[in-house]
């Protein structure tokens, strides 16, 4: 639009064409997401404000009953079941994300120290297991941790589990499953953070500081923060809403929020309560995203913080 001598009408015609172009390219996708995700999501939100019918179908009138139920109030007065579930979800998310970080740092760093032509292969090795289906990966752990397997027997000799039991089903198995599932999601962003790192600076730091730990803490860690934050978002949000892993590895003891929600649409038959749980999950997700974004901005992470 830089050239001179364009009449105003031609310019506005240009504008119209631009807008047309924008609509043509963006509208199909935007409409698709609006119709098939925003609308259903809004409808689900609406269900949360309906009343649960005698057999678990959403009914009029509108009420806040499902939120009361979610908070634990019901026919029997207050009961802590849902609070347990919520706390368990938070705890599992926290522990598994922490463990993922601890494992991913050395792995990502190791890859950056290798020869450049090897790096894509090593990265691929980390990522490939996550190409198999989630259900299959979890099933693999069911096999590994079942009673009588070497790992379970080992745990039994150390008195970590009851005799004749397996490591699965248990809360421990759920944590392990989560770590396994999400490890690649942390390694990738950390790797790209490490790759950008100035190696000379690291070397200098290693000479400057007394221990490698301090060198890491003062020279390396701050520079990988954007990658770390991105990884935390990628790991903790899906971990918090996880359904498959607690269902298969938890054995009735490891129920998380995702299971609470799913159960209301399955056997539990209380759609409004399930929808209220989904709202809670969404709120947690958006708070998490918001906090990470703010943190990222303050720490100078910039754009790449969210994915």
């Amino acid at each position, binding site marked *: 639009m830089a050239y001179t001598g364009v009449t105003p009408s031609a310019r506005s015609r240009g504008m119209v064409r631009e807008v047309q*172009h924008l609509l043509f390219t963006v509208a199909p996708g935007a409409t698709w997401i609006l119709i098939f995700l925003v609308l259903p999501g809004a409808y689900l939100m609406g269900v949360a404000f309906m009343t649960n019918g005698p057999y678990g179908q959403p009914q009029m009138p509108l009420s806040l009953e499902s939120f009361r139920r979610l908070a634990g109030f019901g026919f029997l007065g207050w009961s802590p079941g849902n609070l347990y579930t919520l706390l368990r979800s938070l705890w599992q998310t926290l522990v598994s994300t922490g463990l993922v970080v601890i494992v991913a740092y050395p792995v990502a760093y190791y890859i950056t120290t290798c020869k450049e032509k090897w790096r894509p292969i090593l990265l691929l090795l980390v990522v490939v297991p996550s190409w198999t289906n989630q259900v299959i990966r979890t099933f693999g752990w069911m096999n590994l941790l079942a009673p009588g397997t070497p790992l379970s027997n080992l745990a039994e000799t150390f008195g970590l589990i009851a005799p004749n039991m397996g490591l699965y089903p248990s809360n421990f198995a759920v944590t392990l499953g989560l770590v396994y599932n999400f490890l690649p999601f942390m390694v990738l962003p950390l790797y790209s953070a490490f790759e950008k790192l100035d190696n000379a600076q690291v070397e200098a730091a290693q000479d400057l500081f007394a221990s490698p730990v301090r060198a890491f803490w003062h020279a390396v860690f701050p520079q990988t923060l954007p990658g770390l934050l991105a990884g935390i978002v990628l790991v903790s949000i899906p971990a918090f809403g996880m*359904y498959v892993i607690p269902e298969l590895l938890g054995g009735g003891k490891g129920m998380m929020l995702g299971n609470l929600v799913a159960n209301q649409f399955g056997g539990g038959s209380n759609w409004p309560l399930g929808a209220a749980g989904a709202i809670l999950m969404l709120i947690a997700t958006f708070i998490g995203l918001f906090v990470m974004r703010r943190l990222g901005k303050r720490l100078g992470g910039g754009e790449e913080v969210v994915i």
Partner: protein
Amino acid sequence: MRKRTLRRGLVGFWWLTLTFLYLPLAVVVLFSFNAANSAATFTGISLRWYRQLLGNEQIVSAFVNSMILAITSSAIALVIGSLIGYGMYRHRHRKLGWLIVLIYLPIVLPDIVFGISEMVFFVRIYDLTGLFRPGLVTMIIAHVTFQIPFVGLIVYSRFVGLDPTLFEAAKDLYAAPVKRVIHFMLPTIKPALISAFFLSFTLSVDDFVISFFTAGPESATLPIYIWGAIKKGVSPEINAIAALMIGAVAIAAFLSLLFSQRRRT
């Protein structure tokens, strides 16, 4: 000295992590050849579970469903997602905040909320209009919804990486927009399109939760079948299907490696 021990520790840790990553998969493959129906003891090599698979019509149809779902949804998402990616690039100087939010929505939404929203919605629409009967169609729609953003972002970042003067040159070369698309745009973003399709395909095959909630009586995919089999408690057969899927992934990984190496040189 210190550096060398550190290095050694790193190498050790790397191998430990690899073991952790591949052990469950290796065990699945190993026990798919187990002669006995046991998760704890390996009694000998046998192909009996694979033979059981061959005669199972449900597994074959689940495989077909998985493929139809993955290919169709990836193809649709490729078209819509590329358009949106290009649109975001062309109009990147405008205020498109709402669009960014919309595009990130499918990515950040927890699977379970995503899946249940779709289910509740489709059931309601079907009640009202008789359209969107739960089945492959609803599954394809749901999958396209979470694939669009990924395709869009990949295509967008490819365009951002291009030299802007290229567009001007193309404009001079090809006057007709259609020709420009065919002779300039598509060839330049081909690598992005290929990797977007590949990613969409993987995402579709990897998904269980969303498929599970949008499926109908005849549209069970392999993951849904496996889930059902786990819930039913028949284990050795699952090992065999899972081993086959792991094999397919290994081949895909190998191919993608070849592809990326070739592009590099």
